[in-house]
């Protein structure tokens, strides 16, 4: 590993020159958090060995199963992850569910340090009547469906209605609105799954309302995604200028991102009359979308036969407080919004993994300081399970570097037990074998990847994702 010492953080150089045993680190989860944590450790410690365990046979977490199919440029980040995985000091073991196939204490006995980066696999629930009616879907399941996540392939959302209601004003809500309203020819060239493309081709949805419980100054989505929506071909933005009265001056002193975002909404709302004229002239876009504010979902209303959703009753709210921390207080008034499709996009949620790992179920995170799991030396966490389910890839990158830094400091400070009996994968392999679990290596994944790319080629898509894990395993001869 010549040359590594020169690039290590100053404090580590001295340590690296001594002949210490190679620390073995285990990372649970192969999303951005797992890969960025691994990358930072490998890069700044010339001797460390890192093994990444992943539940699915395929890597990259939400970059593959969350990031929208029409955002291929975001997925370029997997090139960097692939570089990391191909390192001689990094192992990848897919198809291994930690907590079921191997427990965290078992991993702790096999490795000198364990990093939990398993993301947020569940979603928040509204907790209102009617939430489980047919026609109501969580954004997480819907996204998983169009992105080929195996567990969501049977979702088969009913798109036979004209109006869809998306609850929540985050970027996931905008992703879904865009997928529902995008011209088919745009989606056809993406890696969206064939079956969801077929379903979208038959979709009757032509109007999408995004409903938030707070106001325009509290939206959680970001300007790039909003602008994309505004510029979506064939879809018209319907924003009520009244919602934005007085906001121009209110954001004068706000941060630049908030200010620009608000100004774009105001501009779009005011442009409306021009577009209306165009509409009158017969150039109307057949599809439309809009933002509704200060409406908190109270009940999903059943159809007359009680068999499916026909709308949502909203409690109108007023805002108490200013800016990000403003609270939505029901005014007592309600409003019913008719729709045949309800998508609840109010956030993801992490789940506890193993009784041996502390978990704050209130906040849905593993309690930690700078990534060190509270009260469990040698155990770390990074990404959404550390911070909660918000933040883009660069946010996750930074907090993963932070966790890796803690781990490197602990290595340097002699905090970790570096006994050679912790053999790493060797120990875990026998456990997995005894339980009938066969891990998928990174070169196995590369075969699956090649098969997907080949399948996509015929249709002019970057790839056709394989959605059945059994089929993935057949391809690699398992």
């Amino acid at each position, binding site marked *: *590993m010549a*040359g590594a010492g020169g*690039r290590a*953080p100053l*404090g580590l150089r001295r340590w690296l020159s001594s002949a210490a045993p190679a620390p073995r680190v285990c990372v649970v989860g192969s999303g951005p958090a797992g890969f*960025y944590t691994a*990358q*930072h450790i*490998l*890069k700044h410690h010339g001797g460390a060995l890192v093994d990444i365990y992943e539940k699915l046979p395929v890597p990259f977490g939400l970059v593959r199963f969350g990031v929208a199919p029409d955002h291929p*440029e*975001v997925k*370029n*980040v*997997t*090139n*960097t992850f692939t*570089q*990391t995985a*191909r*390192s*001689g*000091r*990094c*192992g*990848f*073991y897919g198809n291994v569910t930690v907590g079921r196939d191997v427990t965290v204490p078992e991993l702790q006995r096999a490795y000198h340090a364990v990093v939990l980066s398993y993301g947020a696999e569940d979603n928040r629930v509204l907790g209102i009547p009617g939430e489980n009616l047919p026609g109501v879907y969580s954004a997480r399941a819907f996204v998983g469906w169009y992105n080929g996540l195996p567990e969501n392939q049977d979702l088969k959302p009913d798109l036979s209605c004209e109006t869809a209601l998306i609850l929540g004003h985050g970027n996931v809500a905008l992703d879904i609105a865009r997928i529902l309203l995008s011209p088919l020819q745009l989606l056809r060239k993406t890696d969206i799954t064939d079956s969801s493309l077929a379903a979208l081709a038959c979709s009757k949805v032509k109007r999408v309302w995004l409903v938030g419980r707070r106001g325009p100054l509290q939206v959680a989505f*970001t*300007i*790039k995604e909003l*602008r994309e929506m505004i510029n979506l071909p064939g879809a018209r933005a319907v924003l009520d200028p009244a919602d934005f009265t007085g906001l121009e001056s209110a954001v004068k002193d706000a941060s630049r*991102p908030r200010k*620009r*975002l608000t100004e774009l909404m105001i501009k779009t709302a005011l442009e409306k009359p021009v577009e209306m004229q165009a509409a009158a002239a017969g150039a109307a876009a057949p599809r439309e979308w809009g933002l509704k504010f200060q409406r908190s979902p109270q009940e999903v209303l059943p159809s007359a036969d009680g068999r499916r959703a026909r709308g949502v009753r909203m409690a109108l709210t007023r805002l108490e407080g200013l800016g990000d921390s403003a609270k939505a207080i029901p005014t007592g008034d309600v409003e019913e919004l008719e729709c045949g499709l309800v998508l609840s996009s109010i956030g993801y949620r992490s789940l506890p993994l193993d009784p041996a790992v502390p978990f704050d179920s209130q906040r849905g995170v593993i309690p930690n300081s*700078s990534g060190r799991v509270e009260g469990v030396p040698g155990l770390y966490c990074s990404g959404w399970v550390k911070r909660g389910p918000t933040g*883009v890839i*660069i*946010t996750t*990158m*930074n*907090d993963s*570097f*932070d966790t890796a*830094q803690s781990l490197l*400091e602990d290595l340097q400070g002699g905090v970790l037990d570096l006994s050679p009996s912790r053999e790493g*994968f*060797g120990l875990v*392999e026998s456990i997995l074998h005894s339980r009938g679990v066969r*891990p998928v*290596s*990174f*070169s*196995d994944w*590369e075969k699956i*990847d090649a098969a997907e*790319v080949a399948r*996509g*080629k015929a249709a002019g898509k*970057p*790839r056709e994702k394989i959605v059945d894990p059994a089929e993935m395993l057949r391809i690699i001869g398992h």
Partner: protein
Amino acid sequence: MKETGEREASATGECPGLWDDGQLGSATLRVTRQKAQPLPGCCLLSAQELGPLGNWDLLYLRWTPLSFANLSYSSENQVTVHFINRDGERLTTTAKEGESLLEVVVNHNLAIDGFGACEGTLACSTCHLIFDKDTFQKLDAISDEELDMLDLAYGLTDTSRLGCQVCVKKWMDGLTVRVPMDVSDMRRQLEVGKQSKQ
């Protein structure tokens, strides 16, 4: 241990020299594909001129300096650029006129962690750089798309730009830009500070 064996073979066999830690974690940039085409004429070669690179079947191709580095330039086109890395270290390199600052970092293997994750497609803001005020004012205008992406950057300043959107010009000779610090860098600096006091 089938998996381990395979993995090592592919790392040392097919890609010799790849696993030099200097390359680890830096962008595997091949061609700057700018979806939003924010700065036409910025780069010397357009994606079309370089052929259909950037396809997904090229996912695993590494950065081979086939483009910018191999073109011949007279020394008149050489511009010295300094990057102040997160840990305060100064990285100095000779750039060529027309290269984007992202290409400078990638072509010269500068060890800036996580830089250029989206490979210059205006989708990540990991190429965020901070300029001094005078230089900033002389740069070409910022597109809305770049501003949109900058709005997601951490440590945003009034003189921030995205490195993949700024092209090296002759007048920039001697340019110094700063990589914004993240949480772990600030901690690392504290550590170093503590050690040097001891």
